C-alpha cells in the first residue's frame, strides 16, 4: 500500500515565513534531508535549501531545527491562528 499523504493535513493560510537556513553556518551534514517527514529539504550544487512551497506542506514538527547541530536552521512557530490544524491528534 502506497500511503497517499497529500491532503492528510489541514492548514490555515497566512503563516508567513517561519523556517530559514543560514548557509554560512550550514556544515552540509544533511541530517535535515533525512529527518524531514515531508521531504522538504533538498540539496543543489552543494547547497542545502528548503523548497519554496514548504509553508503549505510543513507539519511544524521542528525536527529540522532540532537536528541541526550547526545551528543553521531557524524555526519559529507560524503566527498564532495560522498553519496546521490538528483535529485528530
Amino acid at each position, binding site marked *: *500500500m502506497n*500511503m*497517499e*499523504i497529500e491532503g*492528510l*493535513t489541514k492548514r*490555515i493560510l497566512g503563516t508567513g515565513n517561519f523556517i530559514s537556513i543560514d548557509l554560512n553556518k550550514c556544515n552540509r551534514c544533511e541530517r535535515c534531508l*533525512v*529527518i*524531514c*517527514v515531508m*521531504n522538504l529539504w533538498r540539496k543543489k550544487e552543494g547547497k542545502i535549501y528548503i523548497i519554496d512551497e514548504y509553508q503549505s506542506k510543513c*507539519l*511544524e*514538527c*521542528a*525536527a529540522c*531545527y*532540532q*537536528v541541526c*547541530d550547526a*545551528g543553521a536552521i531557524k*524555526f*519559529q*512557530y*507560524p*503566527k*498564532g*491562528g495560522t*498553519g*496546521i*490544524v*490538528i*483535529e*485528530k*491528534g
Partner: protein
Amino acid sequence: MKVFDLIIVGAGPGGSMAAKVAAEEGLKVIFFERGRKPGEKNSSGCGLGPRMFRDFPEMMKDLTPDKCPSMRAGTASRNYFVNNDDIVAGYIMARPTESVSYEPAKSWITMNVYRSEFDPWIAKFATDAGAELKTSTLIVDLLKENGKICGVIDEKGEKYRAPLVVGADGVLSTVAQKSGLRNKWAQNQVTLVPQYDFQASSDKIDDIMGDETLGVWWGSNFPASYQVFFNDGFHQGLGNWMNWWDSNPLYYLNRVINLKYYQRLLKILDAKPRELQAHLLPWLDFPINTHADGVILIGDAGGFPCPLEAEGIYPAMVTGKIAAEVASEVIPSGDVSKATLKKFDEKWQKTSIGKEFEAGHELWNIWKALPFSPKETMSWFVPMIMEILGGIFDWSQPHALRVRQIISHVRSYIPKATPFIMAYVIPLLSKVFEDDLDKLMDPKKILKVLPKLLDMLPQKKKKRGD
C-alpha cells in the same frame, strides 16, 4: 501594558491546570495558546493515565462522551511480535492484572481521547476559575527589565507583565530558550514521532478489536510502533531519538502499515487514513533546569514525560498544579528568585512523577536499548521470545524432543541476551529493589552458572524402565 500576577505560556493540559489552580488561589492569571483553540496544535499525548482519575477525581468525572466524543478506554493491550521477515510471529494480549490496586486502573490502562476535544475541555476549568485565555497568540519573547524577566511579548509586540512566567509551551519552549534555561535539547533528549490517524467506524472497532484498544508492534525492521484506538478511529505512530534516523521517518512507519497482518487489519476495519501528524517529544532520564529567576517550566517544556513510556499529560498536569501552588506561595512575597523557586523541584520530586524518575535513568536506558534498537536487539529478541512462548505448540516432533530443541535454541541466544541482561535488566532491578542485588546476583556468577544449569538438563531421553 497589561499586568497580571502570573503568566502561563501554553494552554495544553499543563498550562490549563496551572491556570486553573492559580486562579482558584486568587491570582490574576492569563494563559496563551497559539492555536485558535487549545489542542489545535497537538498530536498524540492522547492516552490519559489512571493516575489522573485518582489524583484529580472531581475534574475527571466531568469528562464524559458528550464533551469528549472520541473517548475510548484502552482496556487491553496487544503486543505484536514481528519477526525479521515482517511476519507477525506471535502476540501477547494483556488486561490490567490482579496486582493492580485501584480503579479505574483495574478496568483500563489508558483512556484515549483526541486532544482537539480534551484540551478545550480542560482549559474551560481554568477560564471558569477566572483565568483569562488568549488564543491565536504566539509568544515570541520574554519581557525583561534590567536583565530581570518580568513578562512576555507576543508576535505583535504586545507586552504582558507579571512577576512570574510559567513555560507550558511544549517541547520547543520559547520560555526555556529566552530565559537561558535551554538553548536546544541534546539529540538524545528528544524523539521525533510521525503518526497517522485512521478513520474507522465505532461499530467495526467494537466488533473486531473488542476491548483490545492499545497495540504495540515490536519488530526488527522498525522502532516499536504504538496503536491507540479512539471511538471512531485510531493512531499508528512510532518514534526514536533524533540521532537514530537513517531514513525518512515515514519509511519506518510505512513498514508497519505495509505488514501483511496490518493490511488485513485495515481491510477488515475498513480504515482510511485521515490525518498525518509529526511532533517532537522530549524523552529524558531526568528533568533538569526546570526553573530560573522568574520562570518555571512544566510538562513537555520542562522535560517531564515518563522516562519509560513517555506518558505526557499526567506529568504536565501534576507539574502545572505544583507550579501554580508555588506561584501563589511566592508571588505575594515578591521573591521569585531561582533559589526560592527550587521549591518547585522539591515538590514534584515528592510526587508520583518524582518516584517515576527515581529509576528514570535505568528505565530510559532499557527502553532505548530494546524496542528502539530494532536491528541490534529486536532481531534476536523476537525469535527468542517466540521460541519460549510458542515453540511448544508444534507437531513436528515428539513433544519431549521439542522441549530439548527449544532449550537448545534458546541457549544459542545466550551470548546476545546475557550482555543485554547485565547492561540493562540487572541495573534496573537493583535500582527498583534498592538492594545490593548485584552482590546477590553477580552477573559473572550468573554467566558461569546459567550454562551449567542448562547442561544439567538430560541430553538424551532415558528409556522407560531403565
